Each structure stands twice: as structure tokens, then as C-alpha cells.
């Protein structure tokens, strides 16, 4: 596109091209460099157009469309940019749904382009026709079907604007095959406004004042870090904020890595398998400041016994999250960084050392009862925690860590010492097993300059194991650590604790994972003994390419502390 300024008139030149090419050009105009996708009949014109732009757009052919969505999520989360996915109609599109739902609940910006049968075949049960718009509607931030090629530039601009702005989320654009073939006059204009959509609400001054007054008057303030801190790039101002007011701060699983794990005010993880002190003291603080989080049930436990004594300040960009689960005394609706920046001059320097001391005291109990044994066990089997400790030490806490879902996810979140932001990639809200391997792939493509380590259980690994093929083909140097207990460990733990040890279909007979890696020419090693562990992790990190490290861990390890489902968080169990 070329814009000529002719006196007062702006004349925009257009070019005639196919819908398929217009799509590719629109993606380039949005700054897209990488696409994760899988071709098929209804998206072939787009793939054909892509062939001419191979030098400008890096397309990664995954092995299953679900892998494309998780890879795009990993990419989006490490870059704080929109991840892009291509898939064909019918099964190609339905295979995206899990990843789209995951991106929706975890607020990940993603644009999925799906091919669709020609518009005259819509509704006829044509080959590979499915109602993608209908199916994806409940799990997208926005979706739209294009049947007219001339719509393409405007709709793509809108899609990217919606996906990345405000509370981010996934957008699906379904393009019929005839619209891909048809010609249009192409010109591109970025979308900066939609009249029905106000992604970043203006902050109300009176609410800021009320919040500051509460914070300044607090004796036992406590701050909760959600993913909104990372999305809005508020990590720096957040650190200054908590240092100025001297507020102990804990994090949700998606808020992890927003605050250096070694920071003296970082008091750990919230929720079901979080740390003892922050859970117990949530029910003792006098002012609770929640930043960019949604009070998920895994964080709050029983709502009727959650922080009832505290005044709650809820800083959140999405008004529908206010009062959804926890009633806010002072809701501050707005972008987390903008709110914290506006609050900074209003809050007083303070000292809450004796309150912080309470966290340390309680943490000592957890250290004695749980952590020391997890990290430095004297018992026979290898514990998941010590594996994570070795990864943390070998990478100096500077790796991007991608986890799957289950026990290993909780253990990794608890024990990896994150030093850098945007480094923890996991499926938080949806709890999607199979997330980690493709997400790690996407994260590594997004940040080739940083080490990426995927920690995965033996169950989840086998859900998207096919993506080893993608890692092989594109030589993506991710490190894969399988914590193998031959069990679906988290479910087994619940069966042990709440279902009378009736291990109903949770034990797994696993293949030789190193042999599978060998098939994909991926270097691998299996570690079964503690003595081999440190060296194994070091070797993996030193190896220049992709690497699979299988560690046989204790078969029936349990993750503690634990807030049983439906219990109050202060009733957290240590055993």
C-alpha cells in the first residue's frame, strides 16, 4: 500500500489481488512473522498464496491442529504478541477448539484463520463442512465468517485489534474458499477503534483515592499478582509499588514470573497447591490488593470463608470480573500498569516488617514439613521437586519454563526460581493436558535467544507426543523433561486422598520414551537414580539441540500443601 499526500487530500492506492493474497498481506501489515498451521482442502488458496511469501512469513507445519494452537499460545505468551494459526475447515477447525478454549480462559491473544467450504455449500453438509462460527462462539473473544473477499483487510485488522487489546483473547476468522479465490482492491488500515468496544476503561480518580487510603491505612496489607501484571507489562511498577508500601506479595499460577522469586517481598504461590503462608494469611490480612486476576476457585477455595476479614481492592481491566467471585470493597477498573502508576504517588512509604515476619514464620513450617524433603530428599526414589531444583540451578532461574497439567505442574510452579518475567508458560484455567510440548515449541520459536525447558508428565506428554515431529523437522532446540511416575499422578493423588485409594484407570504402561525420541533424531537420556540426575540435567542444558530427559520419579508422590476442594484456604493440609 502506498499513501500519497496530495495537498489536503490523502489518496490511497489500492492493488488488485485475490482474497488469499490479501490475507497474507494483511498478516504482514500486522507485523506477523510466524504462523503455526496445517493445510487442507478449504484453505488451499491461502497456502498457495503463502508459497510466494515464504521469505517473509515463517510457517511451521505442526502435526495436529491442537499443537498449532498451543504453539501459538506459547509464542504469544513469551512475546506478549498475537499468536497466529492456520487450519482447514471441518476437522482442522474442530481440532483447534481445545487450544482456543485454553487461550480464552487464560486471556492469550491469538488469531485463528480457518478455511471454509465455498459459500454456496454452507449448510449443505458438504465435505469437511462444520459450523466453526457456532462451535467456537462460546470460547472466543470474537469470531467472524468472511464470504466476501473485499471484507478481508478490514476484518483481519479488527481481529488483531480485538485479540491483543484490553483483556486479550482468541479470535476466529473463518474464510470461505470462494472468498479466498475472489479478487478485491486491497488496501490496509490498522484498526484502532470499534464503537461498541472499549478495551481499556478510563480509571476513576475517586476509586484510586479510596484504594490509596485503604493501602496507606493498612496494618497487614497483602497483594496478589495475577497475569494482568504481565499482560500490561506492569512488573516493574509493581515491584516499585510493593517496595514503597512494603507489601508482601503472592502470585497466581499465571502471575508467576512477574516478580522475581528471590525478591524479599515475594511470599509465594496462592491456592490449592500454593504455599502455606500466603494461603493462611489471606485470611488474616486487613487489606487485600488483587492485581489483574480473577479469583479462580483454585485460588480462593471456599468463597464463603475467603478473606472475609479483609477490605478488598480489585484492580482489573475486565469489569465482568468485579464482584464475580469475591466482592470488591474498592474496584479499580483499568489496565494494571496504568492503575499502579497512578497509585504510586498516592501511596506512602511504609514498613510492615513484623507482618512480613509472620509469612517467614509460617514458611519455616512448610520448609520443615514439606519443602526440604521435596528438594533434598533422603528417601530412595527421585522426587519431582529435586528435578525442578536441578533445572532451576542449571539455568540460574533464567529459562522459560513450560509446564503441562498435573502434579509436575504444581511442583515446577512451586520450586523453579524464576528471575525473569514472561517466563512461565502453562495452562492455568482450562488445565489442558498436552499443552506443554507444543507450547514449548512455540515459546522457543518466539524467543530463540532464551533456553526453553518443558516439564511434562508421562500422561500429558502422550497427548501431543506427535509434535516431536515438528521439533525434528524445524530443529527447534527445546529441552523436554518427562517426570515419569507411570501414573496420572494428580488424579491418583485424589483417588488416594478422597476415593479410598481406588486407583481407577490412572496407572499407565508407558513406552520407552528415549526410543521414541531416537526415532525423531532427538537426543535423549533416561535417569532413574538420584546420582545421575544433576549430570543428566547439565548434559541436557549443554546440548545445543532439542533434548529429551526422562526421569523416573517416585511412583506415588503427593503434592502438598493442599487445599482440598471445597475447603477454606486457611484449612490447607500439610499432609
Amino acid at each position, binding site marked *: 500500500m502506498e499513501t500519497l499526500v496530495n495537498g489536503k487530500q490523502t489518496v490511497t492506492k489500492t492493488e488488485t489481488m485475490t482474497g488469499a493474497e490479501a490475507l497474507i498481506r494483511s498478516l504482514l501489515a500486522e507485523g506477523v512473522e510466524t504462523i503455526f498451521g496445517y493445510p487442507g482442502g478449504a484453505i488451499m488458496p491461502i497456502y498457495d498464496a503463502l508459497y510466494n511469501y515464504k521469505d517473509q512469513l515463517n510457517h511451521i507445519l505442526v502435526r495436529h491442529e491442537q499443537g498449532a494452537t498451543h504453539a501459538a499460545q506459547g509464542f504469544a505468551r513469551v512475546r506478549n504478541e498475537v499468536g497466529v494459526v492456520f487450519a482447514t475447515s471441518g476437522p482442522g477447525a474442530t481440532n483447534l477448539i481445545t487450544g482456543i478454549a485454553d487461550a480464552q480462559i487464560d486471556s492469550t491473544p491469538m488469531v485463528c484463520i480457518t478455511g471454509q467450504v465455498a459459500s454456496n455449500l454452507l449448510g449443505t453438509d458438504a465435505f469437511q463442512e462444520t459450523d466453526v462460527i457456532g462451535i467456537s462462539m462460546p470460547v472466543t473473544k*470474537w469470531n467472524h465468517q468472511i464470504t466476501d473477499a473485499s471484507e478481508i483487510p478490514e476484518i483481519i485488522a479488527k481481529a488483531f485489534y480485538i485479540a491483543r487489546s484490553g483483556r486479550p483473547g482468541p479470535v476466529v476468522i473463518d474464510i470461505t474458499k470462494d472468498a479466498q479465490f475472489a479478487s478485491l482492491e486491497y488496501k490496509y488500515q490498522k484498526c484502532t477503534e470499534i464503537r*461498541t468496544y*472499549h478495551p481499556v476503561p478510563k480509571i476513576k480518580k475517586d476509586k484510586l483515592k479510596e484504594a490509596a487510603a485503604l493501602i496507606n491505612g493498612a496494618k497487614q496489607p497483602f497483594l496478589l499478582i495475577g497475569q494482568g501484571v504481565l499482560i500490561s507489562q506492569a512488573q516493574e511498577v509493581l515491584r516499585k509499588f510493593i517496595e514503597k508500601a512494603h507489601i508482601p506479595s503472592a502470585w497466581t499460577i499465571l502471575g508467576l514470573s512477574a516478580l522475581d522469586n528471590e525478591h524479599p517481598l515475594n511470599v509465594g504461590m496462592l491456592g490449592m497447591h500454593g504455599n502455606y503462608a500466603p494461603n493462611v494469611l489471606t485470611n488474616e490480612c486487613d487489606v487485600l490488593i488483587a492485581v489483574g486476576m480473577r479469583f479462580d476457585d483454585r485460588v480462593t477455595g471456599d468463597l464463603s470463608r475467603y478473606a472475609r476479614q479483609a477490605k478488598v481492592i480489585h484492580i482489573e481491566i*475486565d*469489569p*465482568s470480573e468485579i*464482584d464475580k467471585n469475591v466482592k470488591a470493597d474498592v474496584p479499580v477498573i483499568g489496565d494494571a500498569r496504568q492503575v499502579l502508576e497512578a497509585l504510586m504517588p498516592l501511596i506512602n512509604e511504609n514498613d510492615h516488617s513484623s507482618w512480613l515476619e509472620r509469612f517467614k514464620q509460617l514458611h519455616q513450617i512448610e520448609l520443615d514439613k514439606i519443602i526440604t524433603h521435596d528438594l533434598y530428599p533422603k528417601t530412595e526414589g527421585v522426587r519431582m521437586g529435586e528435578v525442578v531444583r536441578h533445572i532451576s540451578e542449571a539455568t540460574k532461574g533464567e529459562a522459560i519454563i513450560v509446564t503441562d497439567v498435573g502434579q509436575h505442574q504444581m511442583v515446577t510452579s512451586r520450586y523453579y526460581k524464576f528471575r525473569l518475567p514472561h517466563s512461565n508458560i502453562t495452562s492455568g484455567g482450562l488445565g489442558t493436558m498436552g499443552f506443554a510440548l507444543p507450547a514449548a515449541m512455540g515459546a522457543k520459536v518466539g524467543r530463540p535467544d532464551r533456553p526453553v525447558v518443558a516439564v511434562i508428565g508421562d500422561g500429558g506428554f502422550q497427548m501431543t507426543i506427535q509434535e516431536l515431529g515438528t521439533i525434528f523437522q524445524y530443529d527447534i532446540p527445546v529441552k523436554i523433561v518427562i517426570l515419569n511416575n507411570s501414573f496420572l499422578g494428580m488424579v491418583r493423588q485424589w483417588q488416594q486422598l478422597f476415593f479410598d485409594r481406588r486407583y481407577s484407570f490412572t496407572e499407565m504402561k508407558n513406552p520407552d520414551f528415549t526410543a521414541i525420541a531416537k526415532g525423531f533424531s532427538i537426543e535423549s537420556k533416561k535417569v532413574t537414580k538420584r546420582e545421575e540426575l544433576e549430570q543428566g540435567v547439565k548434559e541436557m542444558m549443554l546440548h545445543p539441540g532439542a533434548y529429551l530427559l526422562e526421569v523416573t520419579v517416585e511412583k506415588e508422590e503427593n503434592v502438598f500443601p493442599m487445599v482440598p476442594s471445597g475447603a477454606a484456604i486457611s484449612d490447607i493440609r500439610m499432609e
Partner: protein
Amino acid sequence: MNKTKTVTEIVDSRNEVRSFNLSILTENKSGLLNAVTIIFTRRKINIESINVSETEVEGVSRYTIVIESTREKVEKVVKRIRKLIDVFWAFVYEEDEIYYQEIALYKVPTKVFLDGDNAEHLVRNNGARILVIEEDFIIIEKTGHQHETKDLLEKLKPFGVLEFVRSGRVAMSKSTRRTDLFLRELHNHH
């Protein structure tokens, strides 16, 4: 009456199931009806009545939805609806905050009107009118609240009702707000 009881009453009124009217201003976009209704489906809230129409502002539609639920739930649902990209705003009203009407049509055999004055009296005394007279049937139209249109149905039944249909509710709030000015204000506010 002591203070505690008042608080209890407030809590009770938030958890009491009653009728709520949602009035939603939207873009006129295909597929949006589905996006709106699945928000209720997901929460297992039944839609009692729904009506979509244009407004006096070009390109802007109004959804009028009646549901039976609690204040607590309705407020969450309304916030979720406001989040839809193509929705300008959603209002929630209780019955005493609106004026509303529904329209009902009744098809009865024409011969009923030929057999004496009873049927004609019924129409006249119930604020209904005759919409059309065909050789075989007459269509009667009545506007009113549900109990009124239903009442007429019961009265017509002895004459033999061939068909009955009632529209969704249309409602207007008691405020003097102008839609176009409200939309402008909403835009400037953000």
C-alpha cells in the same frame, strides 16, 4: 424492626427469583443473537421472552429479554453481555422500572361472530380489535400484559380458538434518556 433484619432482607432480595428485563443495545450483526443467548444457556437460565428490533438510531438494534432469576445472577450475566464486542450496553430493569406490552393474535372461526353478539362483545370489552375477517376465520389482536392476553384466550376458548400466538415483550424504561445521546456519552466516557 432492627437493623440486622434489614440486612437480611437485602440479602434475601438479591437471592429471590423474580422477573428481570434486560434491554441490550447492539450492532445489527448476524450471529449476535446466538452470542447473546448462549450466555444464558451456559448458566442454565431460561429465556422467558426475547424480542429484537431496530431502534430510532440507524444501525443500532435493541434486544429485550425477560428472564426469571436472582439479582445476584442477573448482574453477572449483564456484565458478561456488555463484554460482547458488538454490544454497546446492556441495562437491567425490574418490572416497576419499565412500561411494557406484548401483542397476541387469536384465530377463531368466522361463524362464531355470526352466531350472536357474544364474541363481538368479548372483543370490544377486552380492548381487543379485529385485525382481519376472512371467509373461514377472523383474527383478533390484543395488546397487553401476559395475564390480560391469556385472560382473553380463556374467554375465547369456548368459541373454538384455531390458533393463538403471543409476541415477546417490548419494554421501555421510565428514564428520559435519549438513545443517541446515551451512546455518544458512553463513547466519550471510555
